[in-house]
């Protein structure tokens, strides 16, 4: 008894044996097998356990609609969950494991959920785990056991070792599905000279032609394929069109190496193709569906067409004696083919009038019974017998039943066109009564649905339809519209139920949803199908309800007393079949997740022993440890050296924008809050710009190099947004201004030399310049050509200070950055100075109360940051009106302050909340944005914002609360200018 392999036939390569393991057991298959066909060939009937109730499940279908044969494949980091055994090709040494079964498939602890079955019905989680703790406590205790038992495959928790790619393709026509309809359309279009790409999810072209079992079908397949390829068409195998998007962009996942036992090294496992066609032809076919009856999920209950697929394509008979239950003529041909291969068959037809094929079937030795339906499957581990009953013309099912012994049951309830892709585009499916199925509604002009995907089920009509569409794409008239019909007609059958008998009849076997669950949802008031779907989880498993959706909707319509198809339908969303996250991310992961930006002096920092850190996409020198210094020792030394002697830092990451043109001055004057109309040539000015809503956008210095030429610097973080904002202003709002802006961030390397001896160091390098305070005052700018070795280098130097010391910023073309840096570093070191990194830069600017991105976070006004007095009262500027909103002028707003710990030995952290001592809770009175150990002051200091600012907190104690680290420090609020408040050092 059971399944077996035929001695001949099928498309498998019998010369090439393939050995694989299922739950550790070594089994044999052939090249051309899927996991499912090989398991059936070995008479493995039970392949897994179900999602909720842990019922034994067998192979149910031969395609992506599979709800039973789902496996974990491979071990360790390579493990893949929920692999559909009906789609996955067999390969040597493949490790296949049943899912959701512990400790073994035969003996399964989780089957205890089956005992809970009366509770685990629709909406179980919603009802059980939500409510007062008193009533849910027991279930909360049970939850972890139930959760552990429920589920599908287990994903690997290790990083994915495989590589993936994204590829782009452009073509005239994309044909999805290489069945007879798609193949013919593709061949015709290619012969017309169109550039055609044909994608097929299977590993062979042919679709239904592969499973027919007749030589002429194989011949047709070969002929069409040859025509297509000869005409220059491109076939993509193992490629699933998973999503159809706006602009006809189609996502196609190509599985490149899962079927190979020894893939080429470095070849991607999967490629996601983003295809841009002019037309999409959807020849995605139709999916056979079953109907619900008692215990219709038992191993051995399969779709009738699948029985034929296994027999004709793989040479595997799924059983020796079958009862095949149908309600239309299509199944007769399947049964006759199976009978010819040796299957003993009883065909029961739900229609009372005998089919026109009945005689032919009987001649093939099939026992044909009309007006009968299956009621219940006997047998627990697999099918042992089928209980059947009479159904009358009115659809009433008689109580008297008979039992027929069998080891496999084939079911066919009709065919559902595969209309997922049009649904992705928002094309609503509509019920087509002539075929008892949903078809896609009206499609746009460049999306064409043909063949059985459009509900055209007879072979010749499908081929005619393919030719029509090629004419339509050429712009010719297409002739008569073909009829959607099921040849021979059908009886609509979705569920078989005898009154008074409570049997579990499944409509979504993958998610364990029964017809009773749907009725329960109806009783509890779920009217909308979208709500019913979410409540019962019908159609939400990896098969997206290919088999179950129509049944669920029919049961629901019946419960509501409505006609099937009038309840509406849920929306299919991408992806059509599961897509690895890896294939979507492709190479953009780890350090390739985004581009790495390095300054022109990057290698010099590494050579100097710098520890690097990330600042956005930039790599920046964090600190330069000497000996066994840690970060704290290093940055304190670097900052102290800057204050006492001289030091140099790389500031190339600052945004740089060339603002040029006759109206550049006017442009800057409108942009910045402070006046720029009278900035002299050869001078720089610190400026702040707001957004239209009155919040601070950015700050920086802008240098006037010539009458119509400015060099603007921005913060590192805001370089991109500021550039975009300037372009937007010039192109949308101030279109009369003759100004051009160019991002030159990457063109100029920048470095700052700071400290009391900065001038001496620079004077030694640039003796041609006059370095006196009179000639080169604070905010002075000079441009000089500097000869270094063989090169004349343009240097832009401005006397600007972020550190608060006497300091100069030097910008040179990026190509010369390393050369100048090297020359200056030598001079700095000779003078007893050092290089300093981000951490010391932070320490210096915090001491001075200079703001950066940590403070200017987009929620801060000029007044909040202490710049209120900079705003011009005589000119309008961006944000000048809305910054006056009363709530933004409220004196109680959090304002920039300095923070000293009362006990100067205490340390606190950025991100801490500032609270009054009597209310250390909630959002407090403010927050800390930055902290450092100040070398100049000798203790920890911080910058932050607190309600009312420093004035309001004079003489008061505040608590710096950091509940996460359990650190509560008493502090006093001081002016943000904690060191050299008057600025004598930078001016002197």
């Amino acid at each position: 008894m059971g399944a077996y392999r035929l001695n001949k036939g099928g498309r498998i390569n019998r010369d090439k044996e393939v050995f694989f393991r299922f739950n550790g057991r070594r089994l044999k298959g052939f090249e051309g097998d899927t996991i499912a066909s090989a398991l059936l060939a070995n008479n493995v009937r039970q392949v897994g356990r179900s999602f909720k109730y842990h019922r034994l499940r067998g192979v149910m279908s031969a395609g992506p609609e599979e709800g039973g044969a789902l496996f974990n494949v491979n071990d360790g980091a390579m493990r893949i969950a929920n692999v559909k055994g009906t789609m996955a090709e067999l390969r040597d040494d493949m490790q296949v494991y049943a899912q959701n079964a512990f400790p073994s498939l035969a003996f399964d602890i989780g089957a205890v959920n089956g005992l809970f079955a009366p509770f685990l019905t629709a909406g179980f989680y919603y009802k059980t785990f939500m409510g007062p703790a008193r009533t849910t406590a027991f279930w909360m205790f049970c939850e972890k056991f139930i959760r552990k038992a429920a589920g599908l495959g287990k994903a690997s928790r290790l990083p994915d070792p495989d590589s993936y790619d994204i590829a782009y393709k452009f073509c005239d026509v994309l044909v999805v599905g290489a069945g007879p309809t798609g193949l013919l359309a593709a061949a015709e279009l290619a012969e017309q000279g169109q550039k055609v790409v044909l994608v097929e999810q299977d590993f062979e072209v042919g679709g239904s032609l592969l499973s027919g079992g007749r030589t002429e079908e194989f011949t047709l397949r070969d002929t069409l394929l040859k025509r297509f390829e000869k005409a220059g068409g491109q076939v993509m195998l193992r490629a699933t069109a998973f999503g159809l998007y706006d602009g006809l962009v189609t996502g196609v996942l190509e599985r490149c190496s899962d079927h190979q036992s020894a893939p080429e090294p470095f070849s991607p496992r999967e490629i996601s193709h983003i295809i841009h066609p002019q037309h999409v032809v959807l020849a995605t076919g139709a999916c056979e569906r079953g109907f619900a009856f008692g215990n219709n999920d038992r191993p051995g209950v399969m779709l009738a067409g699948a029985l034929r697929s296994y027999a004709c394509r793989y040479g595997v008979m799924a059983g020796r004696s079958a009862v095949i239950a149908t309600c239309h003529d299509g199944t007769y041909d399947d049964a006759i083919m199976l009978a010819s291969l040796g299957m003993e068959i009883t065909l029961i037809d739900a229609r009372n009038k005998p089919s026109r094929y009945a005689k032919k079937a009987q001649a093939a030795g099939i026992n044909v019974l009309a007006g009968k339906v299956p009621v219940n499957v006997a047998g627990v581990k697999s099918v042992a017998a089928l209980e059947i009953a009479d159904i009358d013309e009115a659809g009433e099912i008689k109580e008297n039943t008979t039992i027929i012994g069998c080891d496999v049951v084939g079911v066919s309830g009709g065919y559902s066109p595969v209309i997922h892709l049009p649904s992705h585009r928002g094309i609503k499916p509509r019920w087509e009564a002539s075929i008892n199925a949903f078809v896609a509604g009206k499609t746009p002009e460049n999306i064409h649905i043909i063949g059985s995907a459009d509900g055209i089920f007879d072979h010749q009509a499908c081929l005619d339809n393919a030719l029509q569409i090629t004419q339509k794409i050429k712009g010719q008239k297409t002739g008569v519209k073909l009829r959607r019909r099921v040849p021979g007609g059908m009886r609509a059958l979705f569920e078989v139920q005898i009154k008074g008998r409570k049997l579990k009849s499944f409509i979504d076997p993958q998610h364990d949803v029964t017809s009773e669950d749907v009725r329960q949802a109806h009783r509890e008031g779920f009217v909308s199908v979208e709500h019913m779907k979410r409540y019962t989880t019908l159609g939400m498993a990896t098969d997206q309800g290919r088999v179950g959706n129509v049944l669920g909707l029919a049961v629901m319509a019946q419960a509501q007393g409505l006609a099937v198809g009038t309840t509406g339908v849920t929306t299919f969303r991408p992806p059509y079949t599961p897509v690895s996250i890896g294939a979507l991310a492709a190479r953009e992961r780890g350090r390739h997740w985004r581009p790495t930006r390095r300054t022109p002096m990057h290698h010099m920092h590494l050579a100097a022993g710098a520890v690097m850190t990330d600042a956005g996409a930039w790599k920046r020198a964090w600190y330069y440890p000497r000996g066994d210094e840690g970060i704290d020792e290093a940055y304190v030394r670097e900052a102290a050296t800057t204050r006492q002697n001289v030091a140099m830092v790389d500031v190339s990451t600052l945004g740089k924008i060339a603002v040029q043109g006759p109206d550049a001055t006017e442009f800057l004057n409108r942009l910045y809050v402070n006046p720029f109309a009278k900035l002299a040539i050869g001078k720089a000015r610190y400026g702040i710009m707001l957004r239209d809503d009155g919040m601070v956008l950015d700050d920086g210095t802008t240098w006037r190099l010539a009458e119509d030429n400015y060099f603007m610097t921005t913060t590192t973080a805001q370089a991109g947004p500021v550039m975009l904002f300037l372009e937007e202003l010039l192109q949308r709002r101030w279109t009369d201004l003759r100004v051009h802006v160019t991002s030159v961030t990457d063109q100029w390397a920048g470095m700052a030399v700071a400290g009391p001896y900065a001038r001496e160091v620079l004077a030694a390098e640039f003796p041609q310049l006059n370095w006196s305070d009179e000639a080169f005052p604070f905010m002075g700018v000079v441009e000089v050509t500097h000869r270094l070795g063989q090169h004349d280098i343009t240097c832009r130097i401005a006397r600007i200070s972020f550190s608060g010391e006497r300091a100069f910023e030097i910008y040179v073309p990026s190509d010369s950055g390393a050369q100048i840096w090297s020359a200056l570093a030598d001079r700095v070191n000779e003078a007893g100075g050092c290089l300093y990194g981000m951490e010391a830069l932070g320490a210096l600017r915090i001491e001075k109360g200079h703001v950066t991105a940590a403070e200017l976070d987009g929620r801060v006004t000029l007044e909040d940051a202490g710049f209120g007095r900079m705003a011009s009262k005589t000119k309008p500027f961006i944000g000048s009106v809305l910054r006056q909103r009363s709530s933004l002028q409220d004196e109680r707003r959090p304002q920039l302050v300095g923070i000293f710990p009362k006990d100067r030995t205490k340390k606190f952290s950025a991100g801490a909340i500032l609270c009054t001592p009597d209310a250390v809770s909630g959002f407090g009175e403010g927050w800390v944005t930055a902290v450092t150990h100040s070398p100049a002051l000798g203790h920890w200091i911080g910058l932050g914002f607190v309600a009312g600012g420093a004035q309001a907190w004079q003489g008061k104690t505040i608590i710096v609360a950091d509940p996460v680290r359990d650190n509560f420090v008493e502090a006093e609020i001081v002016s943000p200018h904690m060191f050299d408040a008057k600025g004598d050092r930078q001016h002197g």
Partner: protein
Amino acid sequence: MLRIECPFCGLRNHDEFTYLEDGSGEMPALDNIDGEAWYEAVFLRDNPRGMHIEDWHHTQGCRMVLRVSRNTLTHQILSVMPAHPDYKEMFSDSAKSANSAPKSAKAKSAKDGRG
């Protein structure tokens, strides 16, 4: 994925662009001190079902601000024009007709036919 036909660069994926904002309204003049006018322009937006004028910036391309007419219901894009009036002028019918008179005549006759 939306595909935007940039007048300067050609048909491109929307991820090359940055959505800026509603392009149908105008900001008040800079010297307009009416807070209500600014409040309306900065904060209040229509959210139409159907045609919408919106401004996109071709950030990964020519960096031009483009005025796009898009149907928010179907995502169909009807027209893409430079936001700057001088550049828009380059793509206007009269500018085109200078280069290709027959094409423009054809477009005109089609329009007439419809009228």
